């Protein structure tokens, strides 16, 4: 599952980054708290494929589909 697929008000830990992210983009994501192992919350899904809001640590960021799809999440443990 990618970050873009994460339903609203649900969170999951980052497993890895997709191959389309370049070094600079990955570095920026890590700087703002989107690191492997970190738990990210999908705060708001917006209509019409607009950027969505995700909470990382103590801040909320807006990410576009092209970048959120490159953030791969841990599969949820079965209930």
């Amino acid at each position: 599952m990618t970050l873009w697929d994460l339903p609203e008000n649900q969170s999951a830990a980052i497993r890895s980054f997709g191959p389309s992210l370049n070094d600079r983009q990955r570095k920026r994501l890590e700087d703002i708290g989107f690191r492997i192992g970190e738990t990210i919350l999908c705060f708001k899904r917006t209509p019409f494929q607009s950027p969505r809001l995700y909470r990382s640590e103590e801040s909320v960021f807006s990410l576009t589909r092209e970048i959120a799809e490159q953030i791969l999440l841990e599969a949820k443990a079965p209930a």
Partner: protein
Amino acid sequence: MKKVLLVGLPNSGKSLLFNRLTGLKHRVANFPGVTVEVSSGKILDHPNLELVDFPGIYSLNPVTRDEEVALLQLEHALQEADTEALICVIDSTRLSRSLFLALQLLRLCQERSKNLIILANMSDELEANNTPLAAEKLQEFLGVPFLPISARTGAGLAELKTSLGNLLKHGPASPPRKEFPSEKEKLQNLAKKLAEDYGPKSDVLLKSQNRIDRVVLSSFWGGLLFLFSMLVLFQSIFTWAKPIMDLIDGGISTLANQIVHYLPPGIAVDFLQDAFFGGIGAFLVFIPQIFILTLLIGFLEDSGYLARVAVICHRPLGYFGLSGKSFVAMLSGFACAIPGIMATRTIESPRRRLLTMMAIPLLTCSARLPVYGLLIAALIPAKTFLGGLLGLQGLVFFALYLLGIFASLLVAGFLSKTLLRKKEDAPFILEMPPYRFPHWKTLFRNALNRSWLFVSNAGWMIFTVTLVVWILGYFPHGSGHLESSWLAYLGHAIEPVVRPLGLDWKYGVAILSSFLAREVFVGTLGTLFGIEKASDHLETLSTRLQHSGLSLSAGLALLVFYAIALQCFSTLAVMKRETGSWKIPVQVFIAYGLLAYLFAWIVFQISS
């Protein structure tokens, strides 16, 4: 002179602190990336200390070209012997990421044997939410001064000045050699742990922000709020500013008539009446519009709403090759294209940045306001609706703003699909700043500064052009003989160019003189009609325009011409600086000039 460097995350309140400490008035706003250049000033109470403000950085690992430049400048400054200390401004409400940068800077200062002071800004917000920060514990752990402050309220600044005083008295002493991990990941984990152990509760801080965001970013209420805020913004420029403009206009006329009444007739009186009051006075009338526009944009920016607008607009702007961040730069462009073009530095994608830069000059900047205001007042009846809340003149103004917006989007869309199709791109990441109630004093000061800057920058140019136009129009036969003046001779030579737009030579001269700066148009026309009429009583310029026989279709053509043409040398110079060559500004100048003439001609032909 000894130096202290000011570094921190974007939108951590560095510039507000810089203004507080130096007494200077640099632009501040609640949006990441407002400071785009290194600036410096002397610290009040410590005139031997120079404070150097750097653009915000997320870490010491640059991602964008501008971050690379800022870090390079920081590195140079740290190597200078007269650099006494580095102040790291951290945002207490975003402690984990702020501490990561602080730890990186602490290691850097240890390597360069420089002092470090950490200022935990936004302490007032922590107090308001009753979620404190253990500053003493953090100071003990980090081994450097750690002071909670509020650049907004001024809390903690006295202690900071004492620390700086001690620094001056005792000289530099490198920070204690406490060992911190060198690996980025370990440093990030340490910052996170420190924030969890000693920082405020982020859930508490984000609670109200999240509640507002659910409404502001919802598809229905969010869209409605956006349309409403834009309508208020553009209506206010005309409707709300009108009483103040009338007051200034009346004041200038009274003053002019009084002065003229007591002076003997002659060349001095003619100059005062025609060029000074008629030309420069006509331009000064439009200052309230510029003030109100800047004030309202500042309000939107400081409240944190603009970042949400960037999210709302990202997708629609994407169809034209632009980004949500383009909207913020473009909104600044409504006040003046220069800060708008500089604000494009927050756009990571070089392609979208260039497209935004080329789109901004088509937006209705404040220099277009005097031109639009004059022509609308002269041509459009002052009818009102809804009990005076909406006015026809205001609606025409709004339509011109829409024209500017559509023109800029179409040009950006066209270029993104043709000439700039293959240029490098980068994705959109934007932090949502907290909602804050804007500080009225700061807002008013920013708006006053911007208005004064507008007057002082354009003032000398308008005065010079007005003087030249007056001399050419006054001689050899004096006031009342404009048709036989030197200017008429020159004007008739360029008349064939403006005749297809339904304009006579006087408008041709006014257009030509305004290629340096478009607001010169008003001053030139004011002077020309002043000489022509040679009246003892100063009429408003719009009244003179009405009596000059300017037809509605020619007036509309003129409005369209000014909506598209790039008549601002300063904008071209900034564009050259940002793109690194004259190639793009020159191409844009020629292309927009030709488009302006073509569309003005089409409008004249259709409407007449």
